[in-house]
């Protein structure tokens, strides 16, 4: 079977909700009706056929050929298979995904990987604010899986993260790992102000000393750490990093003691 390919014909005239174009949501729809699915979010009411040229029929191998910052909610809730976006994606890409792989070969908007529970989301460009974070009113952000941003991430990356691994490779905006509940956030390339602000538990791993930390973080020494060796090896084995991030005895800060205080910020000395 050939990959189900949605080729962008022209820049969309409105924001699009692509959450209907996942294997799970398309499964009950006849292939010939795909073009008639309404995805426009304004009075234009664009249908799939107005925006994309559709080819192929393999629901477990979906490709969006050509991207736009207006392509919202790509692969939302996907459970398996693979989705590839050749170009940019809009807001909430891979939101609440539970399995499979989503690759965005471009930039992603805010809330990429929001609340994801499993699977692997890789963004080769930059990601917007609230990477993996919860939407307004939700109690927890990312809850499992692996989220890799090869470029930069915006502010509040890994907000309220609870489980899983987020890796940002070219630096993040302010407050990465804010309000973290648990899980692991890796930021290489420099983090913005006050990483781990109000984090309860979890690990924030940096490739250099943070430029600022909330005063409610305390210095915890730099004993030898098997965990650091293990995560370094894992990041290299997974192809996320090329060289070790932390080394064998990283500097540790514990916090945020304004809340539970069982989190940590680690970086090489």
């Amino acid at each position, binding site marked *: 079977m050939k990959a189900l390919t949605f080729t962008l014909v022209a820049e969309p005239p409105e924001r699009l909700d692509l959450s209907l174009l996942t294997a799970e949501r398309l499964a009950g729809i006849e292939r010939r009706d795909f073009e008639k699915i309404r995805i426009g979010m304004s009075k234009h009411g664009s249908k799939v056929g107005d925006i994309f040229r559709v080819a192929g029929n393999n629901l477990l191998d979906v490709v969006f050929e050509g991207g736009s910052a207006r392509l919202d909610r790509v692969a939302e809730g996907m459970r398996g298979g693979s989705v590839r976006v050749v170009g940019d994606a809009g807001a909430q890409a891979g939101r609440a995904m539970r399995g499979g792989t989503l690759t965005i070969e471009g930039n992603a908007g805010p809330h990429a990987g929001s609340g994801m529970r499993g699977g692997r989301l890789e963004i080769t460009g930059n990601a917007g604010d609230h990477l993996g974070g919860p939407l307004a009113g939700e109690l927890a952000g990312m809850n499992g899986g692996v989220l890799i941003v090869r470029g930069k991430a915006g502010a509040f990356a890994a907000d309220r993260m609870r*489980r899983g*691994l987020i890796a940002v490779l070219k630096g993040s905006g302010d407050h990465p790992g804010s309000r973290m509940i*648990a899980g*692991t956030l890796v930021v290489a390339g420099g983090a913005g102000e006050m990483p781990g602000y109000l984090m309860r*538990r979890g*690990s924030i791993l940096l490739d250099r000393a943070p430029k600022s930390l909330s005063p409610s973080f305390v210095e915890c020494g730099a*004993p*030898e*750490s*098997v*965990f650091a*060796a*293990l*995560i370094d*090896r*894992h990041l290299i*084995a*997974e192809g996320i990093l090329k060289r070790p991030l932390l080394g064998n005895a990283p500097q540790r800060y514990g916090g945020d003691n304004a809340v539970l205080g*069982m989190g*940590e910020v680690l970086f090489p000395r």
Partner: protein
Amino acid sequence: MPNVSVNGIVIDDTFAEAFGMRATAIIITAPNRKWARQAAVTMTGFATSVIGCGCEAAIDVELPPSATPDGRPGCRVMIFAMGTDELQKQLLNRVGQCVLTSPGSACFAGLEGSAALKLGSALRYFGDGWQISKKIGGRHFWRVPVMDGEFLCEATTGLTKAAVGGGNFFVMAETSARALLAAEVAVAAIGLVPGAIVPFPGGIARSGSKIGGKYKGMIASANEAYAPTLRGVVRSELGADINAVLEIVIDGETNDAVAAAMRAGIKAVIELGPKRGAVRISAGNYGGKLGKFIYSLKDMLP
């Protein structure tokens, strides 16, 4: 009996008889080889025989840094017991008292088995609330704060029900020194076989036993047929030329591992030759009625 002779060493036409056991394995790592071995040797102390120790345990193989999960030198340790509950108890007691306490140590699962045994998921309580759970690439670890940093321990390890205990052979020599040398070369050869351990002191048992005894409550007692001092007194298995017998007892992860270990050990004894080592090789059994696994010596020849 039509015994055969290989390289001048008589091979008895008999067999070793072994039993099914439960086994698990862990990988212990440390900052260097010395301390990885120290933790492993300590936790496998007093673990020669299930008769009195609750389990049989020893280092299976030493692992180079490239073969361990954290890139430090390590040892794979195997533990064997008759039942799952006893194995679980022995595992936690030994890792908790001997590996957790050893400087710089970390502990990982060493076996993917049919079921899981608790490891870090029980030892984590030592952290008194400061322990940290981490999932890395589908594996679950606990980080427990200790005085030299953290004790990192995988949450569970595997259990196998296909393990075999009690594979064995006897090396029989004209002097104690020759018997010891023959047994030592056998142990060294078995050390290279993955998945098999020799749990007795240095891998060698000098008090091979028979089941039961004349005194009430004795599970095992002197195997007088193989005791040279009783050669003229009892119905002895020893000829006039034998003055020392040593037993190599082998536990293996599988039937194949025990057979491979027996082959490797017997090959080493045969290569050593009768002038420096053993003049005869035999094996212990219970007539084939008790054990599920039979290793005929003639099938174990190189």
